[in-house]
């Protein structure tokens, strides 16, 4: 089998998938759930419950506000103790709903059994409505509200549903385990996505370092029509939306455009599973698979965790010893963000928690020698050294002219830089400032 891949750039960080063989464990329901009100890309949700209210699992506790937004459901049953600001991963305080757990009572009408519901009864509109109501967001990490992707804008046509099973981030294995343990659910989820968007074909991309998942999904896919599974060459960032489209279809998303402009809608396998549960089981997004990993941990593993569970609890379960660890990263080592304290709640976008042991340090920062390695590895064909330099000097006309907005923040440039320069930090800064300037110019016009 010839393996597909994207054409430009990319790096090969060590895989370190130490939890790949660990089956998904159900993590106990937390005694206190802290549900952040801003869990999706776009506008934050608005709380619909107040102090003292009794809630059941799956009950809406915050509603969607605006088009690019999502609703939030209670991950536990119990009593709302307060709505207050809570420290998030960055150390800033953001509003959250605090729920004290009492038992585990689910809202009526939610199917919590593991029985497979294969028959698709819902119509196209019903699927989109269900996805909206159940608070489904992209679980690959970007947390983009899923219903928005499925509403194909006029003048565009969805040809392919692309399912991202790449999991190119080192260490993380949550998608891998989900594919091995819930293949049928994922396939039904894919069919639902196809029906909702009107796409006639679905392509599932999985990196070659997960041969068991490729074999299993290829076998399962034969039972369903129009779903094809492809093995992909191991290369970071293969799981980037634009890179995956290029690898699977050979199409290139034009600068500044969305995947739908080339007839593709990309969803993560985790999202496909969540869509299955929402539509077929009437179950809102109240839990997700999280990889807790790190070489220093005694018991790393994959867990099905309720949203709002404290990361400190998860780490304690895995044998975390604060004395020997240096850094806790939310997400993978390439795109994840270091957290300021372990006592923060899980959100919909938490795909993994990586603990980096003491002694692992950054390369010392030295001057740029213009070796051009960052340019060679950039999967978007940009010049990171130039963008970083211009951003640090606030030359935002240069960053705009050099397409800083196309940066997908994969961090390949930062990873490869022999001088250890924090290229991505500066490019990200330039991207946000340039974006502000471009938006303000647009609003003036």
């Amino acid at each position, binding site marked *: 089998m010839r393996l597909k891949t994207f054409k430009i750039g990319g790096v090969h960080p060590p895989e370190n998938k130490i939890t790949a063989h660990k089956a998904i464990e159900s993590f106990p329901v937390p005694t206190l759930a802290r549900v952040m009100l801003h869990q999706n890309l776009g506008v934050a949700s608005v709380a619909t419950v107040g102090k003292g209210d009794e809630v059941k699992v799956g009950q809406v506790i915050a509603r969607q506000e605006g088009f690019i937004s999502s609703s939030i459901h209670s991950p536990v049953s119990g009593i709302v103790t307060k709505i207050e600001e809570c420290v998030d991963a*960055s*150390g*800033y*305080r953001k509003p959250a709903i605090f729920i004290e757990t009492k038992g585990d009572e689910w809202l009526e009408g939610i199917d919590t059994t593991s029985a497979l519901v294969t028959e698709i009864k819902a119509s196209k509109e019903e699927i989109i409505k269900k996805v909206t109501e159940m608070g489904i967001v992209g679980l690959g990490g970007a947390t983009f509200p899923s219903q928005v992707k499925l509403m194909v804008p006029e003048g565009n046509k969805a040809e392919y549903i692309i399912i991202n099973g790449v999991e190119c981030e080192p260490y993380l294995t949550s998608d891998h385990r989900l594919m091995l343990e819930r293949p049928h659910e994922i396939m039904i989820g894919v069919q639902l996505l196809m029906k909702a968007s009107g796409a006639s074909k679905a392509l599932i991309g999985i990196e070659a370092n997960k041969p068991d998942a490729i074999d299993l999904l290829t076998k399962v896919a034969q039972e369903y029509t129009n779903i094809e599974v492809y093995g992909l060459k191991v290369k970071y960032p293969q799981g980037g939306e634009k890179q995956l489209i290029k690898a699977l279809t050979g199409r290139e998303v034009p600068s500044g455009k969305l995947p739908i402009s080339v007839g593709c809608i990309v969803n993560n396998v985790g999202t496909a599973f969540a869509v299955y549960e929402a539509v077929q089981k009437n179950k809102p997004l109240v839990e997700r698979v999280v990889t807790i990993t790190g070489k220093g941990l005694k018991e790393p593993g994959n867990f099905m965790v309720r949203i709002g569970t404290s990361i400190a609890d998860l780490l304690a379960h895995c044998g975390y010893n604060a004395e020997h660890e240096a850094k806790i990263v939310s997400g993978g080592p390439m795109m994840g*963000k*270091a957290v*300021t*304290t372990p006592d923060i709640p899980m959100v919909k976008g938490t795909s993994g928690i990586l603990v980096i042991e003491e002694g692992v340090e*950054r390369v010392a920062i030295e001057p740029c020698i213009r070796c051009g390695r960052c340019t060679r590895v950039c999967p978007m064909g940009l010049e990171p050294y130039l963008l970083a330099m211009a951003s*640090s000097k606030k030359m935002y006309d240069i960053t705009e002219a050099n397409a800083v907005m196309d940066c997908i923040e994969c961090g390949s440039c930062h990873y490869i830089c022999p001088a250890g320069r*924090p290229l991505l*930090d*500066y490019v*990200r*800064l330039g991207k*946000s*400032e340039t974006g502000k300037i471009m938006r303000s110019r647009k609003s003036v016009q």
Partner: protein
Amino acid sequence: MDLIIVYAMVAMAGLGITAAVVLYFVAQKFKVIEDPRIDQVAEFLAGANCGGCGYAGCRNFAEAVVQKGSLEGMNCPPGGAEVMAKVAAVLGLEAQASDPQIAVVRCNGGKAHSPQKVNYDGAQSCASSAALFAGEGGCKNGCLGHGDCVTACSFDAIHIDETTGLPVVHDECVACGACVKACPRNIIELRKRGPKDRRIFVSCVNTEKGAISKKNCEVACIGCGKCVKICPFEAITLQNNIAYIDDAKCRLCRKCVAECPTGAIHELNFPVKAKAAEATEAVEN
């Protein structure tokens, strides 16, 4: 003389004269009439092109001030009253008295007062790290200490103090406001220099509730409002859990400085004598 040389000379002279005539008329036609006062004004300005006046550079400011014909809202911070008086003389206007200003750093949460809780080893830029996290001390409004203000200053007037990790403004400051714009946390403010450089200000911009601010920093303003009550000139206001002293109303009586329970209100350049005398008095009593 060879005839060919004569021909060449005549031809060249003819060409020269024709070109001169054409150029003369073109120059007359496209003449740019510039107010001679612009040059005169520009001559007096500091020439630093710092942008403190709000214009792109000194020349740009000179053009603007001549065109406007009044001095309202026009000020050259590095030049100060002296330069503005000269500019006023050129334009035949009365110079407006403006109080000299200086940049003030409103954060005292240095290494000693706001102990480091996490270690940041990313890009050493305040703008970049402010987008990533709350800060090593945990205060969401506090100084990040990477020195974006230092880089922005073209007068070498602000430096990071190694022991506290906080920026310190020196006398060279001309109040151009470059550091004010560079700080992502809006900590730096331009305030009145004050008589004999004496100033009183609240050295904190944290808007969180008192308990949370205090947890992160022992010298934070906790919004208790004691200073508001004690101020005899109604110069202090309390908004969003933070006190602010209006430098136009403040008469430098220093009552608030003594009243503040966390020591968030700072006084600068007051004689130490008075304090020492007070202390000895207290000991004697």
